C-alpha cells in the first residue's frame, strides 16, 4: 500500500493552490535569501581570486625577468634571505606561475593556449617583519631596478581596503541571508500549518479510515519542498545574473588592473549553486518537519 504519486502530486498541488499568495511570498523570500546567501559565496570567491597573491601577509612581490640569469636570481635570493626585515618569503617558479595563470584564466582557454611557462616571470613573494606601509615601501625599493628584476609590486593600501570592504559586504550578505532564511522557514511552516487547518475535515476522515501518518504528512512536506526548490531556482537565476553582469563587469579588461582577477570560475559557481539548493532543502525540511510534527496530530 505505497503512496500513489498521482495522489501525492494532486494533494500537494491543491495545497499550493489554496495558499497561492502565501506560497508566492514564501518562494520570493526563499529566493531572495538564497540569492544573498549565494552572493556571499560568489563575492568571497571573487575577492579571494582577485587578492590571492596577497594572502598570508605578503606585502610585495619581486617579479624576475623570465630570461634572468642564475647569477642574477641568486643575487636577489641572497638579499632576501639575508635581510633581517623579511619574516618569510616564497619563490614561485615559472611552472608554478603557469599553474597560477591557468587557474586565474580557466574561463578563457584561448588565452591559456597561447601562453607557455617560459614566458611567465618567476617571482619572490615577501612577508616583511613590519607591515607598516612606509617600512614596506622602503624595503621593496631596495629591489627596484636591480639586474634581473622586471618589476616590484606592493600590496598597497587599496588592496587592503578592498579586502576589508569585501569582508564587510559579504558579512552583510551573510547576516541578511540568515535573517531572511529564518523568515522563509517560518513562512513555510505557516503555510503548511494553514494548509493543515484548511484540510482539517479531510485529515479527520483520513485518520478514521486508516491512512498512515506518512500518507497524511507527505503532501504537506512536499508542499514545503516545492516552495523551497522554486525559491532556489529563482536564486540561481539571480546568481547567474550577478555573475554575468556585476562580477564579470568588474573584471573587464578596461577596468582597474586590481579588479581583473575579480572573477568566479565555473566550478565555484556550480558548487555555490549546489549549496544554495542544499540550503533550500534543509530550510524546507525544518519548516515542514516542525509543522507536521507539532501541528498535525495523526
Amino acid at each position, binding site marked *: *500500500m*505505497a*503512496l*500513489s504519486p*498521482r*495522489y501525492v502530486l494532486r494533494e500537494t498541488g491543491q495545497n499550493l493552490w489554496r495558499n497561492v499568495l502565501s506560497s508566492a511570498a514564501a518562494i520570493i523570500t526563499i529566493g531572495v535569501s538564497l540569492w544573498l546567501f549565494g552572493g556571499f559565496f560568489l563575492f568571497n570567491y571573487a575577492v579571494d581570486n582577485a587578492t590571492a597573491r596577497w594572502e598570508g601577509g605578503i606585502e610585495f612581490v619581486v617579479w624576475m625577468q623570465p630570461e634572468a640569469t642564475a647569477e642574477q636570481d641568486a643575487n636577489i635570493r641572497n638579499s632576501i634571505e639575508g635581510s633581517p626585515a623579511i619574516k618569510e618569503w616564497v619563490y614561485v617558479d615559472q611552472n608554478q606561475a603557469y599553474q597560477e595563470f591557468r587557474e586565474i584564466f580557466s574561463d578563457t582557454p584561448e588565452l591559456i593556449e597561447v601562453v607557455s611557462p617560459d614566458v611567465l616571470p618567476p617571482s619572490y613573494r615577501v612577508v616583511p617583519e613590519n607591515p607598516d606601509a612606509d617600512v614596506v615601501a622602503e624595503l621593496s625599493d631596495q629591489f627596484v631596478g636591480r639586474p634581473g628584476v622586471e618589476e616590484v609590486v606592493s600590496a598597497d593600501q587599496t588592496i587592503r581596503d578592498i579586502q576589508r570592504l569585501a569582508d564587510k559586504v559579504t558579512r552583510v550578505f551573510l547576516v541578511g541571508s540568515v535573517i531572511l532564511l529564518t523568515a522563509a522557514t517560518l513562512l513555510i511552516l505557516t503555510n503548511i500549518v494553514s494548509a493543515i487547518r484548511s484540510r482539517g*475535515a*479531510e485529515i*479527520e*476522515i*483520513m*485518520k*478514521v*479510515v*486508516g*491512512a*498512515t*501518518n506518512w*500518507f*497524511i504528512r507527505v503532501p504537506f512536506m512536499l508542499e514545503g519542498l516545492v516552495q523551497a526548490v522554486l525559491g532556489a531556482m529563482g536564486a540561481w537565476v539571480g546568481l547567474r545574473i550577478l555573475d554575468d553582469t556585476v562580477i564579470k563587469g568588474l573584471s573587464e579588461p578596461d577596468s582597474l588592473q586590481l579588479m581583473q582577477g575579480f572573477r568566479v570560475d565555473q566550478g565555484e559557481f556550480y558548487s555555490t549553486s549546489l549549496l544554495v539548493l542544499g540550503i533550500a532543502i534543509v530550510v524546507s525540511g525544518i519548516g515542514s518537519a516542525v509543522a507536521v510534527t507539532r501541528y498535525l496530530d495523526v
Partner: protein
Amino acid sequence: MIKLNNVTKVYKGTVVAVRDVTVDIAKGEFVFLVGPSGSGKSTFIRLLNREELPEHGTIYVAGKDIGTLGAWRVPFLRRNIGFIFQDFKLLPKKTVAENVAFALEVIGKPRHVVRKQVPAILELVGLTAKMDNFPHELSGGEQQRVSVARAFVNRPPILLADEPTGNLDPQTSVGIMKLLDRINRTGTTVVMATHDRSIVDTMRRRVIELDRGVVVRDQARGVYE
C-alpha cells in the same frame, strides 16, 4: 470479535466516562448502545477505534489487544473498522463518488480497485444515479448513505456508528437502518450508539445500556426502555 475487560476511561483525571465495563461482542452481531447523553456511549465507540486509550482494562478487537498496539499500527487497525458519524462529515468539494473513493485512495488502494469498488458500494446504498452530485445537492438521508458507503467501501469486518440517525427524520432513519441491517447480514459486526427508541424497539437486537459510564443492562433482542 470485540472484547472489553474491566475497561475504565477517565477524562482530565476526574470525569469518569466509562467505568469497569466488561462486554463481549461476537462476530456478526448487531449491538445497540443506548443511554442518556453523557452516559459514555460515544467514549465506548471511540475506545474501540483507538481514538481513546483506557486508564484501566484491556480491549481486544479481532483478537488483538489494541491498547498495546504501536502508534504506527493503529491505521491498520482502523482499516478493519468502518465509522459512521452523526453529522456525515462529507467533504463538500468532492462529489459523492470522490468522497467514497477518498477512503480507498488514502489507504493506498490502486486505481483499478477504486474504480471497481466505488460503483459497487454506491449501488448497494442506492446512490448510483447521484455519484456525480456534490453533498449540498443531496438530502440528509442521501448524505448519510454516502457516509455509510464510505465506511463500508473497504468491506471492514466491523462497523461503528455514532448516532447515525440523530440528524434524520424518522422515515429517513428507517431507510438507513435497513441499509445497516443489510450490511450486518453480510457478516459485518455493527455497533451503533443511538437515542432512537423506535429503531431499537423495532429491530429487537442486542441492547447494551450505559448509565454514567456503567453497563446497567445487556439484553439480547432487547428494547430501548
